[in-house]
Each structure stands twice: as structure tokens, then as C-alpha cells.
């Protein structure tokens, strides 16, 4: 996606600038269209801020909302300079309509978004990069990137987010920044953990611990202090696939017994008040996820023979088959998740024995298969509603991949071992 452009050839083509200007009038009208990706350049910065500039350029690329035009690293600094006027015609000639300027010092970084067509600064902000906490400086830069995305498109960026995943080697839950940096274990060593889930504010996670206080206990772990708490009612039976309500006050999960697996909620704000949502005997219900408004729950059930995607009201009433399937021919379906705007769900369904990522539009009831190469499973939506992280073995072994539903672009989030069961956070505020 990043387009390297030979500077020499471009210097001469001032005609290109006029073409770019004409094209970009579409965007200037102010209606954001995901299919149009304006060209953007990240201008040369003071050497001290080179890493900041590099992170921002990559974040803008990963947002899939721009055509990030990279500048040849040598030579152009003399042309563009710093602290001097921006050479708008030059960058327009690179077919960019926006430019990001990173200036100042690490103690006081200034970010400006230039509109190359009107030759004005559209927005700017200045902030110190907090370098005290581990990984926090990077997250501050990611928040700047998201600010730029917001200025340019009116849509949220997802650079300042993290992924949770299960590392298959040591069976611990890890976190990683959305750009693949800062991998760190979260759950303790020598504890078998599965199915991580974020609290909406990003301050804690829930997961199932196999063995220990019970056969399958749900643990709440604070990311700040590391404090671990056993969720009430989960030391009996085997309790799996937790997820938080949008207000963070409740967990919904599946309790497996010898008879069945049924869905329950528990109040984790007051550590009380367990409620049972499904009552099936001889059926398994699992992987429940609240809708973003908290009023519905989507989940997996095998009540009609094969595991498929069901929905119900948050109080357990109004249970229905949500995604249609043809008995005997549609593959099993698992691991549902909602878009943040609640209009679509994503899950994986088996086609010829291989799981593939599928979306289901709730208004139009349209099913779309989104992957076809290798095994692709356990999707989780980014807070922008267009990126999905999932596990794919397309490169040989199970690794996290991010798919942009708008462009179809896929990138890998490299981890050293086999990664499974990813969960994408909401945008993380300071200190998260």
C-alpha cells in the first residue's frame, strides 16, 4: 500500500498536482467514503522525532483509510525543510491531498494536519510524550495517529488499541499493541488460561483458568495491579467463554456441567447476582457476546443438532436462530462478535472442514464469506468496525491476522509462537 515515489520524476510533473486536486474535491465536500483513500504524506521531522514519525506513518497505513505516500528519505529534507513553509505544490505532485507534520521535541510534540489543496493547516495539537510507563510513549503516539485519522475522516482510528491472545506454547494470555509491538504476558505462568476478554474500559480482562480453584474458573485480572479475582459462582462446573457487558458491570459466560452447557450472567461490579439465561438440557450454549447497546446477546448453540449462531434478549428471552443455515450442508459456526455499531456480526463457519471468516449483516440478512485461504477462525472486531483480527494458518502455523473488510487487505501481527483466540480492545485511554 505504501507507495514509494521517485522524487526526480515527480519534480517535473506539476500536471499531476492539478489532477490530484481535481480528484480530491470529492473528499473536500465532507462526506466520508471508505472506498476513497486520500493520499497522505508524513513530512520529514526533526531527527529526534524520527521514530514518532515512523510510527505515525505505519499507523496511518494500517488504518487502511489513506494511500500513504512515503517520501524518499534522502534529499527531500533540504527541499521541505523544517520550520520553513510547507511546499504544497510539491506534495500535491505526489498525489497527496493531506500532509502530516511532526515537529517540536519529544517533550513537546506538535502534530499538524495540512490540507494540501487549500494550503492551510486543518488541525493541530501539541502534547508531551509521556515516557514514564513501559510502552506508554508508543501508545501516546498511537493516540496522535488516531487523532489524525479523526481529523481527516471524521472516523475513529484504532492504533491506540491492543490485542489479547492465547500463546499456545505456554498457555498464557498475552497482550500486544495493534501494530504488533510490545508483546507481554498477562496471565501467570504455570496456569492454563483460555478465552481472554477485555473489559470495555481496558482496565481488566477476564479469562477461563482450567484447573486450580475449580475445573474451569473465570478469573478477573486487573491490568494495572495484576490483582486476580475468582468470579463468584465459577468454582463449580466448568465456566468458559466470558465476555463483558458494554457498561463493564456484568459478565456473560457458559457453565458446562455433565448435562449441558448453559449461559449465565454475573454482576462483577458488586460480585453478586448470578442469573441463568438458557435452560436447555442436552444442548450446549457457549461463546456469548453482548450487543454494543447491551440489549441482545449472540451465542453458539447446538440445540438444533449442529453448532450455529443464535441470538436472544439480554435477559434470556426471545431466543432465536440468528444466522440461517441449511441442515446437513452448512458447516458448523462458532465464535461470534458484534461490530461496535451493532449492525453486523462476524464469526467463523466451516466450509469443507476449514473454518472461514464470515460476516452477517443484521438489517439485510446478508451472509458474506470473507476468507478462503487456509484455516481462518475466532474473529474479533476492532472498535472501528471495519478491521477484524482472527487466527489463520495461511503462513504455516496459527498467527494473528488483521483483515480490513473495506479493502480486503490482510496483514499479519507477528508473534513468536502459535497465537490463538484473539480479542481486540476498545480505544485505550491514558494509563491503559
Amino acid at each position: 500500500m505504501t507507495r514509494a515515489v521517485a522524487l526526480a520524476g515527480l519534480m517535473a510533473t506539476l500536471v499531476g498536482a492539478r489532477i490530484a486536486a481535481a480528484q480530491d474535491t470529492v473528499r473536500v465536500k465532507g462526506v466520508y467514503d471508505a472506498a476513497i483513500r486520500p493520499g497522505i504524506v508524513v513530512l520529514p521531522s526533526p531527527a529526534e522525532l524520527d521514530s514518532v514519525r515512523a510510527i505515525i506513518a505505519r499507523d496511518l497505513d494500517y488504518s487502511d483509510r489513506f494511500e500513504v505516500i512515503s517520501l524518499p528519505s534522502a534529499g527531500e529534507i533540504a527541499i521541505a525543510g523544517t520550520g520553513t513553509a510547507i511546499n504544497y505544490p510539491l506534495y500535491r505532485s505526489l498525489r497527496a491531498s493531506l500532509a502530516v507534520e511532526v515537529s517540536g521535541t519529544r517533550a513537546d510534540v506538535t502534530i499538524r494536519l495540512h490540507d494540501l489543496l487549500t494550503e492551510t493547516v486543518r488541525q493541530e495539537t501539541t502534547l508531551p510524550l509521556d515516557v514514564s510507563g513501559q510502552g506508554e510513549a508508543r501508545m501516546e503516539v498511537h493516540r496522535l495517529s488516531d487523532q489524525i485519522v479523526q481529523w481527516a475522516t471524521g472516523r475513529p482510528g484504532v492504533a491506540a488499541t491492543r490485542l489479547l491472545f492465547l500463546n499456545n506454547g505456554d498457555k498464557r494470555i498475552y497482550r500486544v499493541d495493534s501494530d504488533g509491538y510490545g508483546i507481554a504476558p498477562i496471565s501467570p505462568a504455570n496456569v492454563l488460561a483460555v478465552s481472554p476478554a477485555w473489559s470495555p474500559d481496558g482496565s481488566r480482562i477476564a479469562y477461563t483458568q482450567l484447573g486450580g480453584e475449580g475445573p474451569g474458573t473465570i478469573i478477573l485480572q486487573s491490568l494495572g495491579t495484576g490483582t486476580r479475582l475468582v468470579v463468584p459462582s465459577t468454582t463449580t462446573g466448568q465456566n468458559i467463554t466470558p465476555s463483558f457487558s458494554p457498561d463493564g458491570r456484568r459478565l456473560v459466560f457458559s457453565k458446562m456441567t455433565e448435562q449441558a452447557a448453559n449461559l449465565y450472567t454475573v454482576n462483577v461490579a458488586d460480585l453478586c447476582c448470578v442469573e441463568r439465561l438458557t435452560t436447555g438440557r442436552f444442548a450446549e450454549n457457549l461463546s456469548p457476546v453482548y450487543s454494543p447497546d447491551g440489549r441482545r446477546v449472540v451465542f453458539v448453540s447446538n440445540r438444533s443438532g449442529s453448532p450455529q449462531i443464535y441470538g436472544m434478549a439480554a435477559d434470556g428471552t426471545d431466543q432465536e436462530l440468528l444466522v440461517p443455515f441449511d441442515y446437513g450442508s452448512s458447516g458448523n459456526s462458532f465464535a461470534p462478535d458484534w461490530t461496535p455499531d451493532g449492525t453486523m456480526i462476524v464469526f467463523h463457519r466451516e466450509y469443507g472442514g476449514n473454518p472461514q471468516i464470515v460476516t452477517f449483516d443484521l438489517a439485510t440478512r446478508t451472509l458474506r464469506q470473507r476468507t478462503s485461504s487456509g484455516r481462518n477462525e475466532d474473529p474479533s472486531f476492532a472498535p472501528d468496525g471495519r478491521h477484524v483480527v482472527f487466527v489463520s494458518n495461511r503462513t504455516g502455523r496459527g498467527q494473528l491476522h488483521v483483515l480490513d473488510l473495506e479493502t480486503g487487505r490482510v496483514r499479519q501481527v507477528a508473534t513468536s509462537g502459535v497465537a490463538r483466540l484473539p480479542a481486540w480492545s476498545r480505544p485505550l485511554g491514558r494509563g491503559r
Partner: protein
Amino acid sequence: MRIRSFALALVVVVTACGKKQPEAVPMPTPGPSSTPAPPPPPPTSPNSRPATDPNAEARADLLRTLQEPIYFEYDQDAIRPDAQSTLERKAAILLANPGLRIRIAGNADERGSDEYNLVLGTKRATAAKRFFESKGIDGSRIDIISYGEERPVDPASNEGAWAKNRRDEFEITAGGDRLVKPQ
């Protein structure tokens, strides 16, 4: 109500084991080294080793029988005919030793949904427990746990490894120190 009574039984068992032999309920540490029940070695003939306490040897035989895993077909929790005879021998020991308590751990191969494999493990462990109950063994003596696909015996990705990983393992949680041979 069924859930409640199961829960109560579980608490009693865990407490009992915790006092008598804490090593019987280890924290499940991942990795092949901590897999509780490796495939039993082939039976040795009495002549192949120096004379030992015959009681100890008989007990070791019983323990081997109790701990022998059983295996399942892909995505199935039905007891296979070969597993049935294995379970029959275990059931006889359980009937002869009323103080014996066990834990059955259900496991799945790596294929299929990761989270659904936890369900499959539960169904496999339950299937063996139901078999014992059908032989008159009190279900309160038997705990179950599912490890889904999280504790493979063989981490390879091939048919041979998958067949070994689709299994129930049997762990003695109490009453294993003195065993009576079934008549």
C-alpha cells in the same frame, strides 16, 4: 438442582483430596512434561525383574489399569468398543475399592473450534463417567474436567497425533494407596 448437587460433591471431593494427598490435585501446568497419565508401559513379566513385594506389584498393575487412557473418534464422544473393555476393567477395580475416587479429564485434538473443544472434552469425560455409573459406581466418586485441546499428548498436526490426543485420562484423587484386587 442437578447443578447444585454436582457442585456440592465437587467441593467435598476437592477438600478431601486437599487434606489427604495434595499431590493428587496438582495445578495443571502446561506442557508435555506435566501430562498426568502417560501411556502405560507394556506389562512386564514377573521374571524380568528382581523379586519385589508381590503386593506392590499387584497394586502397580491395578494403578496401570486405572490410569490407562481411552480414545475417541473425531468429533465424537461415544465410547468405542475397545474403550469399553478398558472401562470394564477400571469399573471392576472401582467396585472393589469403594474408597477410590477418580478424576476423568476429557481432551480433544486441535481441529475444530478451540472453545467448542472444551465442550467436547466435557462430553467425553461425562461419557466415561456415565459408563461407570451404569455399572453401579456412585457418581459422587468421580470428578470430571475438560482440557479441550489444551493438553495434547502429541503436539504434532497429523492423524496419528490427533488420534492420541482425542482421549480421556484417569487420575486417582483419593484411596489409591491401598487397593483390593477385584475378584
